[in-house]
């Protein structure tokens, strides 16, 4: 005879079966290929968008020199732009500096008053470029050309451009953090929806196989739910590993052509770790709700009917988290951080924007508690609402959405 299983052991039996079954199924292949389509569409849309952005929101180079030098630099830029076009950064006069008076370029960049990405100061013969490290390296050449043209009217002798790096301008940094947060949130949302949908169809299939009663008789329903959730989580980790490898390979192959994201406030290593953890909690939260729905519904059509509002709600939650991200510290952001379904998204965005660690510890404890509660509630609903009948009396059948198996039976 066998020995009694703990809830954890029972969940493992379910998770092991589901993991193996899904991993070696055809649907897993589609699951792996799934993100390819949004990536392709995204790349195409991104290509168009980038083009628009390049023309509309190209970062500008500020000029802060004495008035005659400014005019010379502007004339040189105009002359070169005719030949080089968009190879040259657009310029904006930040200030016509009075002779002998210094100009605080770093201050202007960090306060955002200049509203440019970098500033060239000094003289055309001895220009100094101030800005973020990445940008000033990129603009060193064009600035040298403009300065040479401005100082001599010819481009043969390029002056030495001295560089002064700032970490980045405040405006740029904020924009960069926001962009990183947005990218992370979108990725998190796509992955979560993909997986939660799979967990739902897995449970519906289970009900179709009519094996659910065997499971419910042998082990607690909580263990069934937890087992299914964690099996899919393990599947997703496999998926992420595959996608990550492919993505990493593409990134390396693309080199400089890939868009560069600003380093998140908590740093890349912790941001990645938090990303994986928030992905897990976001999936577990949504998955537990989808599991409950799947267990209550009798047919695939019913599942689709019931899951639609949840999917819509998740979209709303995503938009809420996206909006909250732009309002750090506001009541909207506090709400997004506290509301269980938006919490992982909002917190990941916060990780990109705010270096504090303790809010993440707090949020994760809250999210894990919510997962536990949702699974318990789902299991309870399943036990009280679904396992009602064998052959219910005909008169008691089909009274409503959840009441197909209403009457007690056989």
């Amino acid at each position, binding site marked *: *005879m*066998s*020995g*009694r*299983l703990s809830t954890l*052991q*029972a969940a493992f*039996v379910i998770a092991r*079966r589901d993991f193996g*079954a899904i991993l070696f*199924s055809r649907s897993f292949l589609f699951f792996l290929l799934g993100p390819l389509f949004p990536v392709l569409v995204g790349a195409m849309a991104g290509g168009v968008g980038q083009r628009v952005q390049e023309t509309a929101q190209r970062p500008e180079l500020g000029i802060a020199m004495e008035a005659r030098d400014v005019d010379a630099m502007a004339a040189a830029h105009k002359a070169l732009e005719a030949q080089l076009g968009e190879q040259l950064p657009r310029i904006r006069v930040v200030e016509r500096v009075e002779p002998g008076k210094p100009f605080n370029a770093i201050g202007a960049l960090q306060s955002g008053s200049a509203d440019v990405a970098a500033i060239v100061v000094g003289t055309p013969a001895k220009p100094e470029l101030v800005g973020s490290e990445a940008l000033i390296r990129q603009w060193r050449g064009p600035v040298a050309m403009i300065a040479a043209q401005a100082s001599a009217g010819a481009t043969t002798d390029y002056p030495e451009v001295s560089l002064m790096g700032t970490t980045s301008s405040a405006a740029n940094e904020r924009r960069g953090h926001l962009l990183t947060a947005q990218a992370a949130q979108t990725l998190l949302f796509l992955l979560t929806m993909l997986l939660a949908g799979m967990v739902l169809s897995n449970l519906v299939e289970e009900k179709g*196989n*009519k*094996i*659910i*009663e*065997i*499971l*419910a*008789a*042998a*082990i*607690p329903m909580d263990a069934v739910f937890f087992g299914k959730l964690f099996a899919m989580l393990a599947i997703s980790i496999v998926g992420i590993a595959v996608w990550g490898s492919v993505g990493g390979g593409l990134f390396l192959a693309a080199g400089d052509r890939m868009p560069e994201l600003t380093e998140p406030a908590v740093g890349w290593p912790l941001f990645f770790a938090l990303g994986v953890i928030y992905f897990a909690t976001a999936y577990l939260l949504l998955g537990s709700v989808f599991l409950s729905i799947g267990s209550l519904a009798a047919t695939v059509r019913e599942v689709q009917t019931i899951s639609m509002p949840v999917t819509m709600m998740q979209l709303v939650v995503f938009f809420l988290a996206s909006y909250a991200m732009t309002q750090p510290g506001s009541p909207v952001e506090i709400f997004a951080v506290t509301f269980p379904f938006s919490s992982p998204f909002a917190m990941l965005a916060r990780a990109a924007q705010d270096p504090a660690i303790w809010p993440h510890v707090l949020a994760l404890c809250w999210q894990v508690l919510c997962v536990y509660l949702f699974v318990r509630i789902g299991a309870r609903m399943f*036990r*009280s609402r679904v*396992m*009602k*009948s*064998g*052959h*219910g*009396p005909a008169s*008691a059948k089909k009274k409503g959405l959840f*009441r197909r198996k*209403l*009457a*007690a*039976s*056989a």
Partner: protein
Amino acid sequence: MASNPGSGAPAPLAIEARGIVKRFDGFTAVDGVDLTVPEGAIYGILGPNGAGKTTTLRMLLGIIDPDEGVRRILGAERPHDVAHAIGYLPEERGLYPSMKAYEAIAFVGALRGLPLREGRERGRALLEEHGLGFAADRQIRQLSKGMAQQVQILGTLVHEPRLVVFDEPFSGLDALNQGRLEKMIRGLADKGTTVIFSTHVIAHAERLCDEVAIIAGGKVPFAGPVDVARDRIRPQVRLETRVADGAWRAALPADARHEPKKDAGNFWYFSLPESGVEPLLRALIEGEAGILSLSIERAGLHDAFVAIAGEAAAKALEENSEEEAAR
């Protein structure tokens, strides 16, 4: 009731339920059911579809909890605490279609705490033992319905449970496989395993069970040994007399049915009076009724069911059996 061999003391109980009630949205599916199933017994829950059999079994197994009452399974108040000692075959059979037969058996065993490797070995051995060795590596979807059902039954038994619960186990089986299952149930009981099954087919309960619970409308009007159920009905007397009337008629019950024969003689049908057969015989002989034949038959479980559960429940039971046969 089963008893401990040699001691004469009542056998310990595998299942004990007192006053269990289950309501669904105002509908009382099971209404104060009491059950006591001795260890080692074959116990039948007999009733038409919709009577509350499945709900009762689900409560006993902990799939759902009763709204009222208490249950104790193999000494435990929480059925999942002894899940490793229970095997369960639900009425709605189901297995993972992509699983191989021996793996399906091992998986059901694993749910009951049997290590997977051991479950696989036992799964193969059980399939061999029951003539299905050739199908061990076939996926469930590749098996016939009957074979898949057998695989599920073997899964129910792979962890060698002390208590086996079958919900309508004969449903959907052909006559040959019904016979095999009856043999298997007897074999389990011979090894000391308690078997409880629900059925709407009286013949199975009558052939197999030591004890039955008759259930109708969510209530159990009778639970106990099959013989005791039968004894609820007085034996039926079939009397044939040459004479149609006389003083001896007073010895017959007032509701005795009289059918005159065409050529000669009379048939009388009635329940044996409580005073027994001797006073009746004496009255017939002394009254010169001219006894041509007299037979006394003990009531069957069907008659007992009609008497205990009522005509409506008995009719529903017959209809279920006919539907089953038609399928």
